């Protein structure tokens, strides 16, 4: 087929364009977060003392921190879905949110007695926390990759990593409703690790899954 004929074919009877990024990610995040929450509620359970925990400022700090990272990752994902769009300061924003928790962690350690450091750092659940976050992230990762696949990422590894980070941060937000830990040093390390596992998986999957 000659290029002129292809152009005519494409222009003839062109239908309305497919739904854009906001629709696809709206759908993906809605279903992904729903599935992650259901998975958490059925297998891990919401922490029984949730009402009490909600009186702790640190509980809201934890939830808000994970949610802020989710929002920033979503921004990265949206930009990476669109050819020619620049990430600009989004990576910096993500780094700044992470650094804020490290700062809180440093302050908490500085104020605590040395003998309390291991408790603040390891909590009681450091062995399982990153893996449970990664498990809750799984449905969000699948949904985000589906949404990205229907758009047009041009940097596939980075786009896959961003989908993974979005999934990991959303998974951590959901996990925060189950998790008993409130120490900033704990969150800055083990939560972050839990977010980075799906990000690494996304980076591995991106070049294969996202091609178009």
């Amino acid at each position, binding site marked *: *087929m*000659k*290029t*002129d*004929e*292809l*152009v*005519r*074919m*494409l*222009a*003839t*009877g*062109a*239908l*309305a*364009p*497919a*739904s*854009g*990024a906001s629709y696809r990610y709206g759908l993906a995040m809605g279903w992904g977060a729903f599935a992650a929450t259901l998975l958490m509620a059925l297998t891990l359970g919401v922490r029984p003392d949730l009402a009490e925990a909600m009186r702790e400022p640190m509980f809201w700090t934890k939830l808000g921190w994970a949610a802020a990272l989710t929002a920033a990752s979503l921004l990265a994902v949206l930009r990476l*879905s*669109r*050819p*020619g*769009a620049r990430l600009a300061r989004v990576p910096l924003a993500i780094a700044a949110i992470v650094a804020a928790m490290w700062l809180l962690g440093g302050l908490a350690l500085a104020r605590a007695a040395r003998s309390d450091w291991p408790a603040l750092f390891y909590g009681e659940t450091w062995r399982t926390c990153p893996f449970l976050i990664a498990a809750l992230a799984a449905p969000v990762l699948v949904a985000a990759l589906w949404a990205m696949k229907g*758009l*047009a990422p*041009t940097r596939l590894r980075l786009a896959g990593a961003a989908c993974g980070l979005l999934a990991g941060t959303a998974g951590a937000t959901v996990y925060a409703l189950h998790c008993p830990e409130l120490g900033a040093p704990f969150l800055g390390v083990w939560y972050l690790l839990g977010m980075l596992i799906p990000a690494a998986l996304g980076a591995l999957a991106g070049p294969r899954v996202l*091609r*178009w």
Partner: protein
Amino acid sequence: MGDTEERLRDLLVRGLAGDGAAYHAFLRELGAHLRAFVRKRLARHPDDVEDIVQESLLAVHNQRHTYDAGQPLTPWLHAIARYKLVDQLRRNGEAPLGSDALDEAADLLQASDDRAAEARRDIARLLEALPERQRLPIVHMKLEGRSVLETARLTGMSESAVKVGVHRGLKALAAKLRQGP
């Protein structure tokens, strides 16, 4: 570049709103720009040029929902052309071009070349290999110029199945093009 960007953007925006003639003009002019852009960067593989032009045009069409009308058009077009070009180079087993050879988005609209060569991969043949539920809607709607309703009557498919068939069929064509000759 400014004028070309303005004109092409206007044509595309009108095309996306349903103006078929504007969309046709957009794709035709874009094809000439893509050809000059690709030819300059693929001097060692002149036979691949028309294939990448066609692949990029199909990609621009299939991915047109990712264009944000509030943003400049040139970086969007350039990123698509660059992606398809780099993909082809990788398939040829070559190292990707240095980033400076590709990274100027403004280059895309600077030159134009109407001398279409023969493509090596024939889209008409690839079309024949599609399943009926994708091939028939494309043949009736996009080659014969029939409406969704007529196509639905002719094929016995529902109107929404016709639309889905066109959409998926064009994506499948892009995937087949990518797999190479």
